[in-house]
């Protein structure tokens, strides 16, 4: 019953799917699946059908394995594995039954589509869609004539019709909001940990993937102003900086904003979002929270887009509670506290203290490194400031915030990203995970001013990126992760494509849908409608005309004969044209010669297929109709 190429193709498809969905499958699951596929291949090769009992035993074993792993992995991944298992086992029983093959195709549609849960980049999507259409072909084979493999033109046409239809559905079909909350416990590949410990960002720096992309609508800020705030850490326990406990949300301050930009965030499975300076306006599914930060309504587990307007000014103080919260020091680093108090004696105001602190970091021979020695003592800040003097942004931010607080100035650590690289083609800024950064904000005259000690220690870090700030040996360590050479240029082009893929396709949402509708509604519909109507009428007229003329020359000729010779006598319904002409010859002896010629020419044209006689017929008809008119005139006068 089944097309002979169905099973091998399905096997190939599942193998490709196995490769593609590696990210969602645990190691043992891939191994088991690979074994099952191999087993299927062997059974197909040797043309041996597998007994149902074997399949059932395999299914039970797989389910047991899955259940045993249930606690250790994500629910979503478990579901993906379950689907894949069912698909792989289904393939066993497919060999001849169409019913089973139908179910297999169904499950595979689902499985392939869930692949988008893992990744949505252009290249992954391309591969997934390729598999999707492979499955469509399998589906086609299922219901096509058994020996047929090629797709004929009617089916291609069907496929071509599908494309615009699905795109139209994508653009206009209403979307429903999420029905239930979907939180995903996945290790985020991001520096936005819930806490900033000394050493946390190190893991991140080697990560060369994109964190987010920004498109500025008009003015672009200078490179050293690109501090993307994401998290604020206000509690320090001696080792880690933690976020404040349930701070109240800070309302937006509507005011003139200098930068308007659209953010495109890669999934990082958190709610925190990125913003620049003081935010004045937000667009999209985001809300303002405490400390001038922006948060998404739900976890960002897909590419997510939102728009912001902000000014470059420092963030405004929310309330007095915020200031007092940021003065607390639960842990003591005695040496650091002494230094802070010494500096405070010479500098009265907060900004003066900040300058003094800058100077302190500049003069004390601190250096920047991604691989600083591990801090072992309980007084970590003291150890960093007075023993090692080597570290990266996390160390400097943490030390500086401690010094501020020790001097009685409210200060907090801010985590986020700094800088980013402008894409040559796309006019957008791309911020990578390795651009993760941490800095300090201290309170001065009701505003949280920025203090970045790293800028003093490694100024190139800010203006030219991380790699130029590092010594040569460390740069090599970093560049292992980078693609280089000609390939890099190509990759840039591809990234550019990927960017627009995510802007136009992946992050298309209700807002854009509404925007399109508004745009459509604002079109001059009265003009378009009347134009369309006119086109329809014109097309109808042309169609009717064509139908009249579009008939064969024989029909046209017959119609002409009837019309032209109407004055000589009506044709009766039962008469053929020949009978009619013969009757006319009898009725009009004066015209009999011409009529006789016409009859002959007509017969030769109609029955002998002599095309040249058509012209002759027309000529004779012209003469006859002219004479007919004359006769009537003479009889009338």
């Amino acid at each position, binding site marked *: 019953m089944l097309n002979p190429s169905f099973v091998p193709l399905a096997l190939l498809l599942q193998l490709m799917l196995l490769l593609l969905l590696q990210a969602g499958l645990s190691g043992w699951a891939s191994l088991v699946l690979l074994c099952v596929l191999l087993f299927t291949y062997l059974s197909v090769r040797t043309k041996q059908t597998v007994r149902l009992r074997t399949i059932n035993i395999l299914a039970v074993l797989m389910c047991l394995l899955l259940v045993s792993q249930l606690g250790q992995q994500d629910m979503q991944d478990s579901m993906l594995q379950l689907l894949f298992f069912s698909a792989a086992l289904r393939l066993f029983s497919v060999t001849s039954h169409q019913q089973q093959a139908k179910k297999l195709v169904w499950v595979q549609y*689902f499985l392939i589509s869930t692949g988008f849960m893992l990744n949505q980049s252009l290249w992954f999507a391309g591969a997934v869609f390729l598999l999707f259409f492979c499955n469509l072909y399998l589906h*086609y084979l299922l219901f096509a*004539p058994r020996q*047929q493999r090629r797709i004929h033109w009617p089916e291609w046409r069907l496929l071509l019709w599908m494309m615009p239809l699905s795109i139209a559905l994508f653009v206009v079909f209403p979307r429903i909001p999420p*029905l239930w909350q979907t939180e995903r416990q996945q290790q985020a590949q991001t520096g936005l940990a819930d806490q900033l410990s000394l050493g946390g960002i190190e893991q991140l720096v080697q990560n060369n993937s994109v964190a987010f992309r920004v498109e500025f609508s008009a003015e672009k800020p200078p490179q050293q102003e690109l501090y993307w705030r994401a998290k604020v850490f206000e509690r320090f326990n001696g080792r880690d900086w933690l976020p404040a406990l349930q701070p109240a949300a800070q309302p937006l301050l509507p005011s003139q904003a200098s930068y308007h930009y659209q953010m495109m965030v890669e999934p990082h499975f958190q709610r925190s979002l990125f913003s620049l300076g003081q935010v004045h306006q937000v667009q999209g599914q985001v809300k303002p929270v405490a400390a001038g930060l922006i948060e998404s309504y739900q976890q960002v587990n*897909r590419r997510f887009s939102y728009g912001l307007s902000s000014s470059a000014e420092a963030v405004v103080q929310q309330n007095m509670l915020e200031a007092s919260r940021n003065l607390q020091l639960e842990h003591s680093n005695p040496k650091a506290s002494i230094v802070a108090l010494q500096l405070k004696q010479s500098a009265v105001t907060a900004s003066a203290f900040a300058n003094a602190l800058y100077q302190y970091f500049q003069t004390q021979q601190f250096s920047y490194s991604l691989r600083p020695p591990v801090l072992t003592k309980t007084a970590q800040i003291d150890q960093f400031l007075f023993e090692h003097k080597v570290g990266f942004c996390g160390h400097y931010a943490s030390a500086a915030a401690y010094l501020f607080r020790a001097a009685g100035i409210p200060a907090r650590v801010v985590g986020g990203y700094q800088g980013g690289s402008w894409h040559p083609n796309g006019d957008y800024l791309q911020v990578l995970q390795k651009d993760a950064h941490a800095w300090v904000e201290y309170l001065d005259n009701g505003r949280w001013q920025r203090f970045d000690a790293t800028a003093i220690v490694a100024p190139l870090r800010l203006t030219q990126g991380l790699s130029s700030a590092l010594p040569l040996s460390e740069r090599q360590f970093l560049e292992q992760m980078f693609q280089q050479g000609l390939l890099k240029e190509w990759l840039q082009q591809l990234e550019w494509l990927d960017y627009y893929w995510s802007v136009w396709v992946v992050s298309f949402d209700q807002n854009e849908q509404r925007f399109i509708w508004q745009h459509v509604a604002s079109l001059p519909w009265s003009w378009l409608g009347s134009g369309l109507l006119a086109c329809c009428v014109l097309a109808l007229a042309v169609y009717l005309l064509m139908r009249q003329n579009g008939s064969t020359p024989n029909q046209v000729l017959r119609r002409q004969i009837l019309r032209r010779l109407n004055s000589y006598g009506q044709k009766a319904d039962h008469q053929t044209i020949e009978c009619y002409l013969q009757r006319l010859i009898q009725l009009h002896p004066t015209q009999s010669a011409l009529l006789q010629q016409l009859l002959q020419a007509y017969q030769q044209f109609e029955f002998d297929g002599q095309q040249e006689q058509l012209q002759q017929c027309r000529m004779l008809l012209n003469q006859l109709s002219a004479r007919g008119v004359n006769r009537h005139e003479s009889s009338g006068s």
Partner: protein
Amino acid sequence: MMLAKTLWQPLFNQFRRYFYRWLETRQPAAATVELRQHILFVFPTAYGGWFVLLIILLYLFGANYQNNLILLCAYLLLALFCCCILAAFFNLHQLRLTATSEPFGYPDSAPLVTITLSQHDNKKMFSLSGPDFAPVFFDTLPAALQLVVYPKSRGLHQLGRFTLSSCYPFGLIRCWSHIQLKQSYWIYPQPALPAMSAASAANSADYPDQLVPYQSGAPVSAMDWKRLAKNPWQPVIRRYTSYARLDTPEHLVVTATGSALEQQLAQFCGLLLQFEQQGQSYGLSTPKTQISPSRGQAHLHRCLQTLALC
């Protein structure tokens, strides 16, 4: 279970009757039927239903996880489903079925009904079923469909309303039509071996009136086999007296009634076939009709049809 069946069966039958009566007005029997909009039915199959469920699941999934690409997959499948409706319809649309001349058969060997098709290019995967013949399936349509009808009793039968359906392509949508063609077929009485009548019994004695050399066209049944065995190069046939008086036609009269009628009809059927084979002219009278003696295939069939209708 039984109760439901007893309750539903009459309702279902009632509905069926109404439906067929409605069909009768919508598509009365015709010699040529072109499948047009008004007699084509289009509806999703069970697999189509599952497919719609898949689309809904994917849509919910995509909407919940705010995943545009899963939504796009759902839309692709939805578009496929919509296009399939049209494709399934056009797979049957404009197909033209034409009835052919009435075939004939006997109760033990039913006739082969032929239906010619036109405008059948690019039309695939058809199944044909009806009350009168075993279901048949065609990957691609031939120019003529041949249906082996189930054995029936003697008479003139009308090919019942049959169903032509296709799920091509993708098996999501089934398009079908209940077609009534003006196509009838004859079932003649089952021919019985002619019983030996008195006259023929005398003739069949091994005393031929005369022997003449065999000429092509002469009935083989009259071959003198014994002589042929002796002298294979000079075949000889016997000529009976009855053979000589071929000009005097046989005339069969249907006289029996009741259960004897069937027997007589069977016997006459066999006789008629024999006469035609022997080249003898023959006539037939039944209570309703009279057929004057003649010969030839047309005459034979006329006689047999008269017998079938007795």
